[in-house]
């Protein structure tokens, strides 16, 4: 793996987008996470902390992309029930 490829994997993990397992209905781990070494995973975690802080600051309701993804999932579930 080149440094550039590793860097791309680290940045890919920082997104809030996670696929939902159709059977368990739980969020899957990001594929890029599993391709990273421990140090790459630690860097991805720390970058995500910073990124979510930036997102909360830029959002009118103080929500990160993680928060918005979770609330959207909840609202879809509630819509399905109703």
């Amino acid at each position, binding site marked *: 793996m080149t440094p550039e490829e590793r860097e791309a994997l680290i940045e890919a993990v920082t*997104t809030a987008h996670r696929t939902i397992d159709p059977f368990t209905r739980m969020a899957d781990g990001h594929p890029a996470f599993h391709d990273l070494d421990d140090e790459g995973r630690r860097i991805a975690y720390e970058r995500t902390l910073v990124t*979510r802080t930036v997102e909360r600051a*830029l959002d009118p*309701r103080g929500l990160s992309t993680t*928060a918005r993804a979770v609330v959207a999932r*909840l609202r879809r579930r509630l819509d399905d029930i109703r």
Partner: protein
Amino acid sequence: MSTVDLDAHLAAIAAGDPDAFERWVAGAEHPLRVSLHSFATRVDVEAVVQEGLLRAWNVAPRIVHDGAPNALLRTTLRIVRNLAIDEVRRARSVAIDDDELDESLRFATFEAMPDPLLREAIHRCSEQLPPRPRAALGARIASEGAEHDRTLASRLGMELNTFLQNFTRARKLLADCLRGRGFDLGDLA
């Protein structure tokens, strides 16, 4: 910064109000993520945080106040810790010692953030970003975690790697700008 009690939203959440849950999530996400730092090399913390937040909605009606603040947050801290442990065991990863587990329970109270001055600084600095890094940052925020980076990159006319490089650049430039205004994003971790 001030300590906040997110249980101000608990009664409404327990009654089924998703707007109240949204306000609770806005405050709960950061301490939950920080509590999982010792798991960062073994589980995808983002997936665990998202799952834990959703389960908080399910357990909220059963929360019994014990007189201390943030009862729902404290319960959710245990939920995400147990989810992380389950994931570690499922992956047959390295064993976790009890000290690490206890450490994740330290976050029963927390400070509201980002503070107004930091928010203002982030706004100012984001406005100064060059167009392409700013577009990458804005695309992820606008997608609200609902779309793959490949989709966002395509919409911006970028290759995926170029999109990711621009996102990296956006964060670095923001960090540099904020440092110039007296804020160190590294301190927030």
